[in-house]
């Protein structure tokens, strides 16, 4: 009677306990994120009211009073923060002072726009980075290894905003092979929103013209953003592959007479997948940073542009919304990476 109960308990509770602990720290971290952004946007010499109303209107005391009243800015700061949290729990992130629309609505259009660029950039840099890193590891110490090392270091050194401008200039203004800024050419109508990703929505709607146009608009931002992450991934893939290459099971696979590609894909890359996965998570964070600068150049209506607009206008609800979103993204990525660890390597136990 007691034995099965004893056995069942350790089989079930580690995962549940782990998830609970994970959830607890996540909520604490998100609270911290809101608190930090709240303090940052409030302890400021800048005047958010003047920033939101503009020069003329902020001279008029009646307008200012009405504005202060409407947004609850006359309340003490702790009260404002608590009000924000209560609304947050109900899914209300407040109204943006810049766009005048609910922050949730703004974010609902901005997040997919950035996500579409980010996901393609990750795919491109993962392919290129893995290929280059593996080649470098296989040809360690030779010329091609050195070339890959220099190339990846250069990738880490390019100022993304400058590269964005240069590529915009060359491929759009000079060669005219890339479309201009934005997500879609002005004469086209965005596809009906399903996922928010224009390419996928266009395919779902069967609109090939929009699909081609949206893909073309994605090309330059994706390439520019990928440069940095390619550099990052290449270096880590190389180290990871080198580590695996010295393992006995690779030797055994070779001795068994398996073909080169088979060893690379089924053994080497499989073995190196854990460190690669970790760095993909890091690369995603770097992408979010890069996206602010790249979106500014390509007039891409994404999270970066929104963050910039709300930060420069001292738009508290907007900034808090962005802070929350990036906090959630960070947590989700870390969580997914940790879960995939378990999938890729059954030896990994929940810690």
């Amino acid at each position, binding site marked *: 009677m007691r034995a099965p109960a004893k056995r069942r308990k350790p089989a079930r509770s580690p995962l549940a306990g782990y998830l609970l602990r994970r959830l607890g720290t996540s909520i604490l971290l998100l609270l911290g*994120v809101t608190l930090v952004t709240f303090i940052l946007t409030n302890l400021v010499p800048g005047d958010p009211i003047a920033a939101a109303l503009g020069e003329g209107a902020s001279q008029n005391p009646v307008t200012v009073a009405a504005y202060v009243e409407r947004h609850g800015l006359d309340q003490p700061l702790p009260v404002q923060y608590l009000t924000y949290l209560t609304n947050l729990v109900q899914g209300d992130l407040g109204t943006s002072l810049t766009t005048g629309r609910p922050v949730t609505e703004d974010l609902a259009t901005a997040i997919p726009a950035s996500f579409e660029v980010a996901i393609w950039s990750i795919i491109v840099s993962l392919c290129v980075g893995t290929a280059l890193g593996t080649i470098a590891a296989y040809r*360690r110490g030779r010329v091609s290894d050195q070339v890959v090392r220099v190339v990846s270091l250069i990738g*880490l050194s390019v100022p993304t905003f400058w590269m964005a401008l240069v590529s915009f200039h060359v491929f759009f203004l000079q060669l005219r092979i890339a479309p201009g800024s934005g997500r879609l050419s002005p004469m086209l109508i965005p596809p009906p929103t399903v996922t928010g990703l224009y390419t996928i929505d266009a395919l779902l709607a069967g609109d090939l013209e929009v699909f081609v146009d949206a893909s073309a608009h994605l090309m330059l931002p994706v390439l520019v953003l990928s440069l940095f992450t390619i550099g990052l991934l290449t270096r880590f893939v190389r180290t990871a592959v080198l580590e695996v290459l010295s393992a006995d099971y690779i030797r055994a696979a070779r001795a068994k007479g398996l073909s080169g590609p088979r060893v690379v894909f089924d053994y080497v890359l499989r073995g190196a997948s854990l460190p690669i996965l970790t760095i993909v998570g890091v690369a995603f964070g770097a992408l979010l940073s890069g996206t602010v600068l790249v979106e500014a150049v390509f007039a891409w209506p994404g999270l970066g542009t929104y963050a910039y607009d709300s930060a420069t206008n001292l738009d508290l609800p907007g900034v808090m919304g962005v802070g929350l979103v990036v906090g959630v993204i960070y947590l989700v990525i870390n969580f997914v990476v940790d879960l995939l660890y378990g999938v890729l390597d059954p030896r990994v136990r929940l810690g």
Partner: protein
Amino acid sequence: MSVGEGGVKQRRIRRAVFARIPRAWLTPLAIIGLVVALAWIVVAFTASSFIPFSPTEQSLPRLQPPGGEALLGTDGLGRDVFSRLMAGAGVTIPLALLLVAVSTLVGVIVGAVAGFFGRWVDETLMRLTDLVMAFPTVILAMVIAASLGPSLFNAVIAGIVVSWPQYARVTRSLVLSLRTQNYVVAGRLLGYSPLRSLLRDILPNIAGPVLVLAALDIGTAILLLSGLSFLGLGAQPPTAEWGSMISEAMRNFDSWWIGVFPGLAILTVVMAFNFLGDSLRDILDPTSQTERESTGVTHAPAQASDGGER
């Protein structure tokens, strides 16, 4: 006689100094990085003495292409691009070095305290670093720079706030592993105070990895400062700063020289520091196994390093 003796002595000293630099350090990457970085640092501190025009004076004809009176052309306000480029080195590079120095200091102190004292101190400080690291650097730096008010100084503060956590993490893990080493424990048993133990026994041994991190971070700092300036949250006009020069170039798209040269300046400087940092990593960080073994002995049999070895 004494002169000759002095010369011999000097030569001997020089030889002794060079002999202490292992051959393995002198890779093309390290040399290129060192030379270019030093060149830019020299420019940064001497630019004002050799530039032909004032970097802020609007005295030349506007939008002149390179090659005329102005070596690299003039910008939309009739300022000399070459002079602004050189003066820009003096703006960004010292500030980036300052940024890295301060964030290293802060990070090492936080990490050392957390790792050494453990318990709730550790827990609190590490959750704080987690919190800062949850933000993408540019977004957090942007919010800080925007709320402090756009200025280059505030951009540096923003940069410090976003970059100290990585040093704290590395320092903490190193301190944790060193704290239980016998020689440290022996020191404590001899009656060393915690502070003395930390300063004399532990910190000197974490200098290598921290230095590597800092060297690689200089490039990141330059990219961050110029990026914030590009967004208008760093240097304010008319300061000659590379990032803001590039953003000014967006107004005159046909005059490519306004934006291309500052971009190349950032690229070369960051690249030089990255080359340097990467080479430093090979030298100082024993945990990274890059090509040290094979470049040290360049004629080593190739098959020894292509995966066949154990």
